[in-house]
């Protein structure tokens, strides 16, 4: 197989994977008797055609940045964290407990405290699978899947039996106090000129951007990041270089869990204002697609998160305005994961053929 130039590997492989996923989705839409062109138009209009649409796209993207970063950090240590969903749900529990604990005076204080709660609970939920992987060799993929289900059961129990206020019917916590309400993009001076209507995207977006920069800094500019990446490339080599695999595995997974947990300040604190059942709505799983598509780099994750935010908001618009079910976005999500994560060798093989013929043509 021809080795591809670096730019082709970074840019072309994800783009062609996306194109393939798009083509198959279009065929699916055709097969159920709808027009793919109309569908795309509805999605673009609804998701990026207005500031209001962008308000939703960016809201989803904020969550996906966090979960995408979570998967990215674990991937660099060659750990596949499928548990982002459970860690995000636990993060939501952390946010709820912090927000309900005190009558918070101002959102800035509440944001810092709730972030700590979210990160702590998310990291704690990743800690047991991490320990079992590092110490006992239990496969992290299986344990994190199991922990997703255990998290769902735990959250249902907490909401129904512990946190639900007396007299309330639906399983949810009480509303958070007014002092925890995060300003949306509509309420931020300056940005309110663009976002003239109330939108769900909120200040968490900036926390997400900061987190992206921080993850880049940790992975490529610190000793810890070097050790994580070294362990991910080769465990024997890392061991030989004096890196302790147990320690690095634990730290990478705790970081990953904390990042997944942090997404809850976006949806639980920023949007719903109380903890509901299944608060993360699959965002933990989308992190896998985002990380793969973003080539495990924070900048790529940011771009892929915007793309998936578009897909999510656009998919919701499809469900509203056309007879194409909203589940189309799950199909696209699955296809993107399939092409970027499992069939990437196939994409590379085809690209390799192209580059080889070009080279011989030039020579």
């Amino acid at each position, binding site marked *: 197989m021809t080795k591809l130039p670096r730019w082709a590997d970074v840019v072309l492989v994800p783009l062609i994977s996306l194109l393939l996923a798009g083509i198959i989705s279009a065929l699916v839409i055709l097969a159920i008797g709808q027009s793919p062109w109309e569908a795309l138009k509805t999605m673009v209009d609804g998701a990026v055609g207005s500031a209001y649409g962008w308000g939703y796209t960016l809201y989803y993207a904020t969550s996906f940045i966090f979960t995408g970063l979570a998967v990215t950090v674990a991937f660099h240590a060659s750990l596949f964290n499928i548990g982002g969903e459970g860690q995000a749900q636990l993060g939501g529990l952390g946010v709820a407990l912090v927000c309900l604990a005190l009558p918070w005076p101002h959102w800035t204080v509440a944001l810092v405290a709730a972030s700590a709660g979210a990160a702590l609970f998310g990291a704690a939920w990743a800690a047991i699978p991490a320990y079992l992987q590092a110490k006992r060799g239990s496969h992290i*993929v299986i344990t994190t899947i199991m*922990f997703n289900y255990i998290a769902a059961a735990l959250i249902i*129990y907490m909401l129904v*039996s512990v946190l639900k206020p007396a007299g309330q019917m639906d399983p949810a916590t009480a509303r958070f106090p007014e002092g925890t309400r995060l300003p949306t993009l509509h309420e931020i001076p300056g940005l309110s000129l663009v976002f003239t209507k109330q939108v769900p995207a909120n200040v968490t977006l900036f926390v997400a951007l900061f987190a992206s920069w921080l993850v880049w800094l940790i992975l490529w500019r610190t000793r810890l990041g070097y050790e994580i990446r070294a362990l991910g490339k080769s465990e024997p080599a890392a061991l030989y270089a004096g890196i302790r695999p147990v320690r690095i595995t634990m730290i990478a997974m705790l970081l990953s869990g904390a990042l997944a947990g942090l997404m809850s300040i976006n949806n639980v604190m920023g949007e719903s204002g109380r903890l509901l059942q299944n608060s993360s709505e699959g965002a933990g799983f989308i992190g896998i697609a985002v990380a793969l598509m973003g080539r495990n780099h924070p900048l790529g994750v940011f771009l892929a998160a915007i793309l998936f935010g578009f897909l999510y908001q656009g998919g919701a618009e499809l469900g509203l305005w056309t007879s194409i079910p909203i589940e189309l976005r*799950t199909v696209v999500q699955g296809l993107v994961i399939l092409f970027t994560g499992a069939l990437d060798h196939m994409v590379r093989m085809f690209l390799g053929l192209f580059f080889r013929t070009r080279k011989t043509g030039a020579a």
Partner: protein
Amino acid sequence: MDYATLLQILDSTMRLAAPLLLACLAGLYSERAGIFDIGLEGKMLMAAMCAGAVAALSGNVWIGLLAGIAGSMIFALIHGVASITFRGNQLISGVALNFVASGITVLVAQSLFRQGGRTPPLSGAERFNPIELPFAESVAKVPVVGPFYAEVLSGHGALVYVALLAVPLTWWVLYRTRFGLRLRAVGENPASVDTAGISVIRLRYTAVMITGVLCGIAGAYMATGLQAGFGKEMTAGRGYIALAALIFAKWRPWYALMSTMLFGFFQALALRPDVLKNTIGFDVPVPALDALPYILTVIALAGFVGRAIPPRAGGEPYVKER
């Protein structure tokens, strides 16, 4: 808990464990051949939709079963192409196919029937109806054993018995045939199988397709036996419970029977919290029962009840020596 209630719960254990057992044995073939399969869930879901839809359209449950198997096998083939031919990441491929199945089943069911992503309710010949085992009526009067035979073993749909028969069959194939020996070898050390002149690729594809067939039966049973029609996300994580049961069973067929029966029993208990409360004297939250299979699997994986060691070459794509 009196004997009659116990029989009732064991009866629903059988019904609930059957799809777990089929999916668990499905995973066993694939993983024993060295191909991890997280996509059991997606294949079951796809099969459930195909079986529900075709049974409703044709009015014949057997044609529905075939359609379910076909739907599941298509997904198995994609998994095979991604993980065997293109040597992709097997875990990611499985996860991806689960998402695709979750979405596409609703899309197809909605465009066919326009009933909110469900297939129409099935009845009569469109479903697998209970089969009375011979002499159930007359044996029922024999104390203790009689009611057990008549209530628990007898009176299930055909596919429940298929699931039960699949256990000895799998054992026989795996440990008493040449194919089984090679299958186990290719999951432990593919290079040695290759050296012996046997195609690793072909063996693995065969295993993955068997997985497709068994998941197909499991999914078809969900839509045409356990329930009357396909509904969105109706497998509800059963593919993952089956995966858990497979690890709990340490990749062996008879243990798979026991672990799926155990997990089926938990599911049956979760449907009857009143019985549990009366038996042990205090209230067990239903979510705790729902989570029990997963917790047990984590404990099993941690090696506290004997080590669960997966097939050695599992998850590794085979690259022929050049």
